[in-house]
């Protein structure tokens, strides 16, 4: 009998060691990432966030939760993760509401993650998965078993950088207490900032982006031309409906917003098309939706150089102003004193025709583009 069982025990030992090998590979090759930090922050036992901002990179740079806290008297956090698609946001929200008594979710919608021609394959689906709790992880696997690569289930290999200097850095970061304590320092890049945040970390998931005016990123925007006319993909629709259902089930107010990107890119890309599509989409589902791309210059003065790039990652100064505006706006909406004409142009065309002039009027400064 013993002889019969022995090979199977060996198999189990082999698999157990294999799990250590995977963990070892992650430890050596995977950098200490921001997703690990923010997911831990959201799941901490000593915090309870009632307002959560969810989205991708535009949201992370645009909304300062401290401003919302000040104006609305809430305890908010910016949980946006660069590169997070709608399905990632769903699992993230599911995880967040397990550990927080969430009352409001501000979902910053980025149309790039909704349109059909957004490249998507089984490789860019998995990075949130690595930081999920076991139950949500199993749900993730259940929903993605047709797409997820087995290697990505076992390891965080998509984040690997197989270079000596990266290995050295990973080992140096991960052998410090800041990594094990989930301190933000463990996610800092060479410049001392959170990777791709381009500015000092303020707290609650928000970094104050410093704007140098020399990173237009125009070529990337060129690749987006025409995308605004694409239909929405089925996957984000499916997952947004799941988010909506989750919020309804848990009595959470779901507010969808589009934080304003560089005015010239709004015009160049013709984002009134996107505005119309999202308006129809959210209205059909009875979801609050506010698109700030056509917010008046008098209310939020902004020129292209206030952004880190033409893609529309907001610089810290405008982000703080926008966050205050968003807070007041949400308050007005809750009070019922919201008047559209106070905030928005009469149409996108109205904005295209007047934004430069209005900016100068509002600030006394000349409008600057990249």
């Amino acid at each position: 009998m013993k002889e019969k069982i022995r090979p199977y025990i060996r198999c189990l030992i082999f698999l157990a060691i294999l799990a250590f090998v995977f963990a070892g590979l992650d430890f050596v090759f995977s950098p200490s990432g921001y997703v690990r930090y923010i997911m831990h922050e959201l799941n901490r036992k000593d915090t309870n966030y009632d307002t959560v901002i969810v989205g991708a990179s535009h949201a992370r740079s645009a909304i300062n939760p401290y401003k919302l806290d000040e104006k609305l008297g809430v305890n908010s956090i910016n949980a946006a993760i660069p590169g997070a698609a709608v399905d990632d946001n769903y699992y993230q929200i599911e995880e967040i509401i397990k550990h927080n008594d969430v009352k409001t979710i501000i979902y910053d919608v980025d149309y790039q993650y909704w349109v059909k021609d957004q490249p998507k394959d089984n490789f860019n689906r998995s990075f949130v998965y690595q930081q999920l709790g076991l139950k949500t992880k199993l749900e993730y696997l259940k929903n993605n078993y047709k797409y997820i690569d087995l290697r990505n289930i076992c390891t965080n290999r998509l984040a690997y950088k197989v270079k000596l200097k990266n290995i050295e850095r990973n080992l140096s970061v991960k052998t410090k207490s800041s990594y094990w304590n989930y301190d933000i320092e463990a996610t800092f890049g060479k410049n001392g900032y959170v990777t791709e945040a381009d500015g000092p970390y303020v707290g609650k998931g928000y970094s104050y982006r410093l704007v140098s005016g020399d990173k237009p990123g125009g070529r990337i925007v060129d690749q987006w031309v025409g995308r605004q006319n694409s239909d929405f993909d089925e996957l984000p629709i499916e997952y947004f409906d799941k988010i909506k259902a989750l919020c309804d089930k848990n009595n959470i107010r779901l507010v969808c917003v589009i934080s304003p990107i560089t005015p010239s890119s709004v015009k160049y890309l013709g984002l009134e098309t996107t505005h119309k599509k999202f308006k129809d989409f959210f209205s059909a589902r009875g979801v609050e939706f506010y698109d700030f791309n056509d917010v008046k210059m008098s209310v939020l003065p902004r020129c292209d150089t206030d952004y880190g790039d033409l893609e529309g990652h907001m610089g810290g100064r405008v982000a703080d102003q926008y966050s205050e505006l968003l807070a007041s706006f949400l308050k007005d909406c809750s009070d019922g004193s919201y008047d559209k004409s106070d905030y928005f142009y009469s149409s996108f065309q109205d904005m295209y025709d007047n934004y430069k002039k209005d900016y100068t009027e509002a600030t006394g400064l000349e409008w600057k583009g990249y």
Partner: protein
Amino acid sequence: MSFTILEFFLFLLLTLVVYYLLPKKFRWIWLLIVSLVYYVSFGVKKIVFVLWQTMVVYLATRLIDKQARQGKAYLASHKADMSSEEKKAYKAKLKKKKKITIFFMLLATFISLCGIKYTDFAILNVNILIEKLGRSLIIPTFNFVAPIGISFFTFQTASYVIDVYWGKVEVEKNPFKLMLFVCFFPQILEGPIGRFQTLGKQLFEGNDYNLKNIQFGLQRILFGLAKKLIIADRSAAYVNKVFANPAAYGGWYDILAVLLYCAELYADFSGGMDLVIGIAQMLGITMDENFRQPFFSKSIGEFWRRWHITLGTWMKDYIFYPFSLSKVAANIGKWSKKHFGEAGKKLPVCIADLIIFFIVGVWHGAAWKYIAYGMYNGLIMAVSVLLEPVYKKFFEVTHIKKKSAPWQFWMIIRTFILVNIGWYFDMSPTVRSAIFMMKDSFNFASNKISLLGIEKAGMSLKDLIIVAIACLVLLIISIFKERGVLIREKIASFHLPIRWFIYYALIAWVILFGYTNGTSAFMYANF
């Protein structure tokens, strides 16, 4: 259902667990169910082709078997009252009847393959001809999409029909068992082209559970994934880019593209075979090997005996020998001997080679470039046969020892070069493009290779180094195999810590260096 995604591994796990839990006599039914499920995962409508193929083959073989049995029974019952002439006449009549049956049955077997794969090609060529004749009539094309693995299961079932006709195998009376032979899931995508006499029995009998089979099968799968993910997928981006736009490159870029294509194709196809054979081994089924260190071949003929072996043996058994031993070949032999002397005796063999490689070319796809690829190989083989007396003379004059290591090494290098020239036709979009690229490969002056240039063509220096090291590892393994070392048995004989270290290293190797930006489908799954 891609081989690297979770779905496939869950599917495989379920297949194995249920297979070994079921009583032996029901196991083949389970294999049939999972094979159909697997095929349907590529599209529900495509299953029609599997059903059609099964139906045709079933009816054909039953009819052939019936004719043979009736003939035998008639002869037995009339043994006493028939003269030997009458018996001969009856046998000839029966043979003719069987020939007519098999002709129509093979026609029905190949009709879906030819109809789907070659109709549009034929129409396009007719349209070109019509245009050249100055007519304005354009025949519309059908744009058929070939079901996955159609070339493989058509050839596999055709071999079964012919073997039944020849009396080499017993006819299978259960159509569902036959269906399993047609669509057994690991091999349906890209072979190997199995034979009923070896594969059928293993599929239907239900195999004993053996942990060693599971372990060895998993090792083989891991090795296949390493080849596919590290070499093939990493090389694909550069290869596709250069071959798609050869005018933008030239010189060393083209030579590198051909060499990488060689690595990609071998790693992709043989890696796929490792997966297929590994999965089958886990089910206790031994599949035919499709590769035997092809790049150690010393001639094109030997190369084709080591590369895609099951297609080569299929061609040999069902085309080459039947043609070479036919009356037509004998008449050609007689005629050519009369006109060209002793050398003329070889003409039927040359014609058989050309026919085979024409079919091999057409089998690869409906395009002139594939026909050119086939004919290139066929011509080399045919010319080699014709030049045998010249070679003999050459060795007599030069006193070169054929068995000497330097000469053997030169033969390997020469064959490798010839094989790589053939890839130009295989991978280029058109024959014209292949010829242009061949010429441009020697245009070193205008296009000096640079790392920046390679990077622009889709491959970083890191990728190149990873592929080169992986190819070197593959070469070392191939050298051991060529010397008769059974690698897996050898590893199994090591002490446990060393053995496990090798496995962990291989797994880590796949995770660290397997291509990240997307896993492409297996190349031969398109055939």
